[in-house]
């Protein structure tokens, strides 16, 4: 066993031990504890938990890689996934906390005084969360298989067992405190290699400043980003700091990710766990600070890794490449095809001459090796990626379980069940959800990875307008909200299904509606939802007095 593997077992073993200890200590005894952790979570703890809940395997493993290949266009991930928190903090979190129930369908169902509205919301919450959770399980499986050389099935089963422990025993309470620990693990694992690399390449230990600094003489001097632009252009790629995609497309994708972030049920429910309206606001601020730490580091990592990669591999003799190249070649994350038979790697923009294919995930996973960092730093990345995948998976599974036990069974189908029975159903639901998610993690249907990115569009087009209008427009009624959610959700889903599955060959800017890609169509869905809701609402009766009173009430802070 190599030294990297030993370190990896050590870090993963320690972190999993920590999660399980926390799980055993925070068992949930009531539905109030199971759904919202008893409602007494400190704002800082909730901020960390929200950050871990939010930052998934995709944020941790894939985002920096995506940015390093997209260059400036990668911006929509950065702004979209952080800017949504401004909307969440200002337009949703405090009011939903004041409303003070357990779930998002709870709010939709009560505010729109209708079982159909609740059912529509349950359907949206479950489908959005399911799509998303399968991707997390898959992410966990991949990390296990790449770092420990166990097969993906074993990896997913280990991941499932750990999540099972703290999610089934502790519900939201167990999930919250493990997420706090997971945040610490993942941010440490992300920052350490970034700081090391920034020091090495620019002499500045702060990556956020380092990537705007000059390279050290060993790396050839000059500003890093200028250098990156230069090499990219020399090799026939687009300049790194210039945008390639249509401006309106970037605009719409950014907006879809922002609205989606604010509308994702597993993020929203985190704000039900704090003790007061004021705590909800404060904790949103902490959450964004904790998230921003990783999100401002990611573009720096992207730039460092891209420079490093191009410096190392281009025109290098294949036989003389460093060890990591062959290791990652085995995992097929990187592949070399010596087309002109000169024994050297040509990494160029022209597809006819290019000999190297690189998967973006390598930018984070292999970055420490590419930069020649010590083995323990390499191993740390595995523990961090698992923390990111498992914390998000747990948050999503909880949404699915509450949607079934609380919204569907208790509030819609069998209101007579006792709290004890409801709690048992919640545990059964989360158990079944873990099994299904695990199954799809092991046998990923081709569409999961594709669809994960669209979960945002769907959340944006269904929940965001319904909740915001419910708070800010007292006159909004049942008919408007239901019609809006159905219109927004189906429009977005159909557009995505059409361009991704029915006619993928047509998915080019020429055929897109107003040049908007399927990734950005959620923004259009949000607008359609809003317009439909406002129009229908005008022609149907105003909501009952007690509902209007409830809206007045959630607008005020206090208890």
């Amino acid at each position, binding site marked *: 066993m190599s030294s990297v593997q030993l370190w990896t077992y050590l870090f993963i073993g320690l972190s999993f031990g920590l999660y399980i200890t926390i799980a055993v200590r925070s068992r949930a005894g009531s539905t109030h504890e199971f759904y919202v952790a008893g409602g007494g979570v400190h704002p800082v703890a909730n901020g960390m938990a929200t950050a871990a809940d939010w930052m998934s395997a995709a944020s941790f493993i894939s985002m920096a890689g995506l940015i390093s290949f997209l260059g*400036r266009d990668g911006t929509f991930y950065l702004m979209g996934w952080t800017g949504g928190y*401004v909307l969440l903090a200002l337009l949703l979190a405090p009011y939903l906390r004041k409303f003070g129930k357990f779930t998002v369908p709870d709010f939709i169902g009560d505010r729109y005084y209708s079982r159909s509205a609740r059912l529509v919301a349950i359907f949206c919450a479950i489908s959005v969360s399911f799509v998303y959770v399968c991707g997390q399980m898959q992410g966990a499986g991949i990390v296990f298989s790449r770092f420990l050389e166990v097969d993906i099935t074993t990896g997913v089963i280990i991941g499932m067992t750990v999540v099972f422990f703290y999610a089934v025993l502790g519900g939201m309470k167990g999930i919250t405190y493990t997420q706090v620990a997971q945040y610490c693990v993942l941010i440490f694992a992300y920052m350490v290699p970034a700081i090391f690399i920034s020091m090495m390449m620019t002499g500045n230990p702060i990556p956020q400043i380092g990537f705007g600094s000059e390279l050290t003489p060993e790396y050839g001097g000059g500003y890093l980003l200028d250098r990156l632009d230069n090499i990219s252009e020399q090799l026939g790629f687009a300049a790194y700091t210039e945008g390639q995609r249509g401006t309106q497309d970037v605009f719409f994708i950014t907006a879809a990710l922002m609205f989606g972030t604010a509308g994702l049920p597993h993020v929203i429910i985190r704000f039900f766990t704090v003790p007061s309206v004021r705590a909800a606001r404060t904790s949103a601020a902490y959450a964004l600070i904790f998230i921003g730490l990783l999100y401002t580091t990611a573009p720096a990592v992207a730039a460092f890794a891209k420079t490093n990669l191009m410096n190392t591999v281009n025109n290098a003799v294949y036989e003389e490449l460093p060890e990591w190249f062959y290791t990652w070649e085995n995992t097929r994350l990187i592949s070399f095809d010596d087309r002109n038979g000169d024994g050297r790697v040509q990494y160029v923009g022209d597809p006819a001459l290019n000999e190297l294919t690189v998967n973006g995930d390598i930018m984070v996973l292999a970055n420490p090796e590419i930069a020649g960092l010590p083995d323990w730093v390499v191993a740390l990345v595995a523990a961090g990626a698992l923390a990111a995948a498992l914390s998000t998976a747990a948050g999503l599974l909880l949404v699915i379980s509450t949607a079934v036990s609380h919204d569907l069974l208790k509030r819609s189908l069998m209101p007579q069940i006792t709290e004890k029975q409801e709690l048992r159903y919640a545990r059964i639901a989360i158990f079944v959800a873990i099994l299904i998610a695990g199954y799809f993690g092991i046998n990923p249907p081709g569409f999961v990875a594709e669809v994960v990115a669209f979960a945002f569009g769907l959340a944006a087009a269904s929940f965001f307008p319904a909740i915001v209008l419910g708070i800010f427009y007292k006159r909004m009624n049942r008919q408007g909200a239901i019609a809006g959610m159905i219109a927004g959700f189906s429009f977005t889903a159909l557009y995505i299904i059409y361009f991704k599955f029915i006619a993928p060959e047509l998915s080019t800017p020429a055929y897109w509606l107003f040049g908007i890609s399927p990734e950005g169509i959620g923004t259009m869905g949000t607008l359609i939802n809003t317009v439909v809701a406002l129009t229908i609402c005008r022609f149907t009766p105003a909501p009952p007095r007690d509902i209007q009173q409830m809206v007045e009430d959630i607008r005020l802070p206090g208890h």
Partner: protein
Amino acid sequence: MRDEHARAYWKANVRILTTLLSIWFFVSFVCGILLADFLDNFRFAGFKLGFWIAQQGSIYVFVVLIIVYVFWMDRLDARYQTNSKAANLKAANRAPNADEEQAS
């Protein structure tokens, strides 16, 4: 009286939201996307300005916006609570008189 307070509070709240969300929109969508190419003409250190706003600056601004929101709302809550406490006090002082009036 309480209704008026509630309405004033809500109005002030909406004013805060509008101000902060305008900045949010301006920084992210206007500077980070629409004007990014133009802003790239300006540089500081190794960054082009538009690129920096898009990949770094906007996120810092988002954090600051939420922090400012927390402070402004705290101040608003405090003002509103003292007001409503004063109102309650007045109401409480009036209450016995009202009872007496009813009694007599």
